[in-house]
């Protein structure tokens, strides 16, 4: 959970205190933890670390599940008391290697590895807070969804309102968080959402526990409507030329710049479906959130 303009003062204070505590607390035995994100079950195996509490626990609690059934991925965790140095950072101080038989993702606070010889296992080294281990799933999940043609992870916010799911996209500072902050409906997430393909009912939009300033929800939303947010002094919805729509959607897909062409092909395939099946438009919005009543 990040601190931003929409973080209430009490939450801001709690995050600061919790962050100070977690970095100075010795490891304890943490029981297994099941997280279900967009229908994919991750089982964090028991290990010596810090159980999430307070704001961190509240952020992931919609995704916590009882340990029933077979997980899609079992995650072996190791807590480290110092951050990692990233060799050959590709972008954003992260290293990503996607080989056909093994994947590695590394940031300064986590390292996640997957090997084809144990396809249901993930190895995760994380720095101090288990929230870093959860964060490490973001890029893995993004590429897993693409490779298996089951979805996309988008840098976007989303909210369910009147049986529709509004997905707000745009560059940083465009107003994605602000848009869902004002929703009269249910906020799903304000940083990362998953577009999950579903043969029966069409695409579903799912919240994630990754980042954001608002507490997310795990409830899936149907009937997506994609809106590129642009700040304005009036509220209106405008069409967008297909070329711009492809370019702007692609820029919001979570995918490593170094990903092999197969992943880019999968991403473009998913965007083709989005443009065929759903409305993709520009939302010119006043920052008071009045567009919810005037336009949606």
């Amino acid at each position, binding site marked *: 959970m990040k601190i931003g303009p929409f973080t209430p003062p009490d939450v801001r204070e709690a995050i600061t205190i919790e962050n100070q505590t977690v970095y100075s607390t010795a490891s304890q035995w943490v029981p297994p933890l099941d997280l279900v994100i967009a229908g994919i079950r991750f089982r964090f195996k028991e290990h010596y670390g810090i159980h999430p509490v307070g704001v961190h626990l509240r952020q992931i609690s919609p995704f916590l599940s009882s340990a029933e059934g077979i997980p899609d991925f079992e995650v072996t965790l190791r807590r480290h008391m110092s951050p990692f140095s990233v060799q050959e950072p590709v972008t954003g101080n992260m290293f990503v290697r996607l080989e056909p038989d093994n994947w590695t993702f590394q940031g300064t606070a986590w390292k996640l590895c997957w090997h084809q010889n144990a396809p249901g296992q993930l190895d995760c080294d994380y720095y101090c807070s288990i929230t870093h281990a959860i964060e490490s799933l973001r890029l893995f999940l993004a590429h897993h969804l693409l490779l298996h043609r089951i979805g996309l992870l988008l840098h976007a916010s989303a909210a369910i309102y009147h049986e529709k799911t509004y997905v707000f996209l745009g560059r940083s500072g465009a107003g994605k968080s602000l848009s869902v902050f004002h929703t009269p409906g249910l906020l799903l997430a304000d940083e990362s959402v998953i577009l999950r393909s579903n043969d029966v009912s069409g695409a579903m939009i799912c919240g994630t526990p990754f980042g954001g300033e608002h507490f997310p929800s795990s409830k899936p939303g149907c009937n997506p409507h994609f809106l590129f947010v642009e700040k304005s002094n009036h509220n209106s919805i405008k069409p967008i030329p*297909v*070329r711009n729509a*492809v*370019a702007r959607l*692609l820029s919001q897909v979570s995918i490593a*710049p*170094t*990903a092999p*062409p197969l992943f*880019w*092909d999968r*991403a*473009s*395939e998913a*965007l*083709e479906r989005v*443009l*065929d099946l759903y409305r993709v438009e520009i939302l010119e919005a006043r920052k008071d959130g009045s567009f919810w009543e005037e336009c949606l």
Partner: protein
Amino acid sequence: MTNSALEKQYRVNPGVAVRHIRNEWFFINPATAELHNLVENDLNVWDLIMQGWTPGQIIKKILVDTDGVPDDVTRDIEELFDRFVEKGILRPLS
């Protein structure tokens, strides 16, 4: 483009993702972080390129099928191939 270049065949760079969306071809080149597009027309030039037609063959076909001005058609097709080669989308077959 030289006469010999006009008779070369080209193929898509395997590092580029190609996708047809709503009557436009899109080319994603992760190596250069660029997205290019080609609006489809009745001549389906991209289909001809994919079938291994050379620039010279495509120019001849367009001149047979349309009332285009030879110099203009030649220039347009040469520019298209030059641009796609420069952007790393097409590679000449050796």
